[in-house]
C-alpha cells in the first residue's frame, strides 16, 4: 500500500486503524440498511406472490373464496406426517366451509436428500394436486418429479386412499399403482410414500386440521 510498512507496534497507529475499520463498518452497514429498506417491500411482495403462485397447482379444481396464503398454521414435530421437521399447513374455505388443506411436507428418503412437497388434499380426502417445491435429485434421472421436467407428478391428482387402495400406494416396480420413469425408483418411491402418509394423517386429523386457529403470522415455506 502507499502508506508503506507501518510500524505495527505503534499504539496510536493501531487505534487509528481500528477507527478506520469502525468507520468503514458503519458506512457499509449503512449501505446495506438503506438497500434493505428500499427493497424490503418489493421482496415481501415477491415472496407473497411466489407463495400464492406456488400454492395454486395444489388447489386445481377447488373453488374457494378465502385467503389461502394467510391461512397457515404449523404442526410441530413430532407428528405422523412425513419428515421430522415442523409442517406448514394452508387451508382453503368456501363461504366458511373447509374445502382443501395444503401440506408442505418433506419426504426424507429422496435419493440425494430430502424432497419438499406441497400436497393438496380436498376436504373429501381426494388429492387435489402435488408439486415438488425443492429437491436435490440427480439431473436427468430423479429430476422427473419436478413438473418443469415431466408430467409425472400430475398423476396424483384425483387419487385417494380408496382409489387406489392403500396397499397399491407404491410404484409399479413394487407392484403398486403409480408409474415411475426409467432409471430412478428411489425418488418416486419417496414421493409416493410421503403423499400416502399425508393422506393418512389427513384422514385421522381432518377436523383439527381445519379448526386449528391461524396464529396470524403467514410464514412462507421457503
Amino acid at each position, binding site marked *: *500500500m502507499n502508506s508503506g510498512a507501518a510500524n505495527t507496534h505503534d499504539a496510536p497507529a493501531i487505534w487509528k486503524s481500528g477507527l478506520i475499520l469502525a468507520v*468503514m463498518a458503519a458506512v457499509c452497514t449503512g*449501505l*446495506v440498511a438503506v*438497500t434493505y429498506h428500499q427493497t424490503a417491500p418489493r421482496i415481501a411482495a*415477491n415472496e407473497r406472490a411466489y407463495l400464492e403462485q406456488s400454492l395454486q397447482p395444489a388447489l386445481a379444481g377447488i373453488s374457494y373464496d378465502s385467503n389461502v396464503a394467510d391461512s397457515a398454521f404449523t404442526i410441530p414435530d413430532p407428528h405422523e406426517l412425513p419428515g421430522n421437521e415442523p409442517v406448514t399447513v394452508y387451508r382453503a374455505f368456501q363461504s366458511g366451509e373447509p374445502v382443501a388443506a395444503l401440506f408442505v411436507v418433506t419426504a426424507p428418503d429422496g435419493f440425494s436428500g430430502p424432497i419438499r412437497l406441497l400436497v393438496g388434499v380436498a376436504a373429501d380426502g381426494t388429492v387435489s394436486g402435488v408439486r415438488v417445491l425443492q429437491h436435490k435429485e440427480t*439431473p*436427468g434421472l430423479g429430476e422427473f418429479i419436478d413438473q418443469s421436467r415431466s408430467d409425472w407428478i400430475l398423476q396424483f391428482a384425483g387419487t385417494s386412499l380408496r382409489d387406489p387402495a392403500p396397499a397399491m400406494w407404491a410404484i409399479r416396480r413394487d407392484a403398486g399403482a403409480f408409474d415411475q420413469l426409467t432409471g430412478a425408483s428411489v425418488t418416486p418411491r419417496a414421493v409416493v410414500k410421503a403423499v400416502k402418509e399425508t393422506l393418512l394423517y389427513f384422514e385421522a386429523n381432518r377436523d383439527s386440521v381445519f379448526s386449528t386457529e391461524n396464529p396470524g403470522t403467514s410464514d412462507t415455506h421457503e
Partner: protein
Amino acid sequence: MSEAETMAGKLKSAVWDDNPGLVQLLGLCPLLAVTTSFVNGLGLGIATLLVLTASNFLVSATRRWIKDEIRIPMYVLIIASLVTCIELIFLAWFPSLGRSLGIFIPLIVTNCAIVARAEIFASRNPVGASVIDGLAMGAGFMLLLCAIGAFRELVGQGSILAGLDLLIGGDRLPGLVLVDGGFLLAILPPGAFISLALFVAGKNALDQRRKKASRGQSIRRFG
C-alpha cells in the same frame, strides 16, 4: 493512450490473455457450480460484474485510508456489503433469477477474483482506472460463465437459452430446443470440470497456434 484505447486493451486482456477464470483460474466455485445453463451463467456473470465494479470503485476511492495491516478486513467488509446489496436487489427486481441462483449470489463473497482485483489493482490505482478494470475483468468472467453455460446446456440438454424468462420476466420459455435430451454428464458436476478443462485446453491450443503462425511469418520475413 486515449481512454477508449485503454478500455479496449483492458477488455482484450481481461477476456482473453488474462481472463480471471480461464487463465488465472479464480472464482472456480461459482464458475463450476452455476454454469448448468446459459441463463444461469449470464445471471451470475452480471451479478459478479456489478460486485466487482462496485468493489473496485469503493476500494479505490478509500485506498488512502486502507492501511496494509487492515486491508483484508476492509476488502471483506466492502465486498460482503456489496454482495448483500446485490442479493437484495436481485430478490426485489429479478426474484425468479434470484431463486434460481440461490446460494450462489451470497457466495460471490468468496469469489477470490474480486479480492484479487481489489488487492492487485484497485488498491493502487485511481478510481477511473479501477472501475474500468472491474468492468473489464467482470466482463471477462461473465463471458466465460456464459460460454461454459451455453456449452454445457447444449451438450447436456440439447437446448440453448432455456429459461430466459428468469432474466426478462414473462412466461416460462423452453429456449431453442435443438435436440431432445442430451449427453447428461455435461450438466452433472463432473461435466463442469471437463468443460472448463476443454475451454482452457482450447484457449491454450489457439494461443500456441497463433504464436507458431506469427513465428513462421517472422522467419519468412527474415529468411
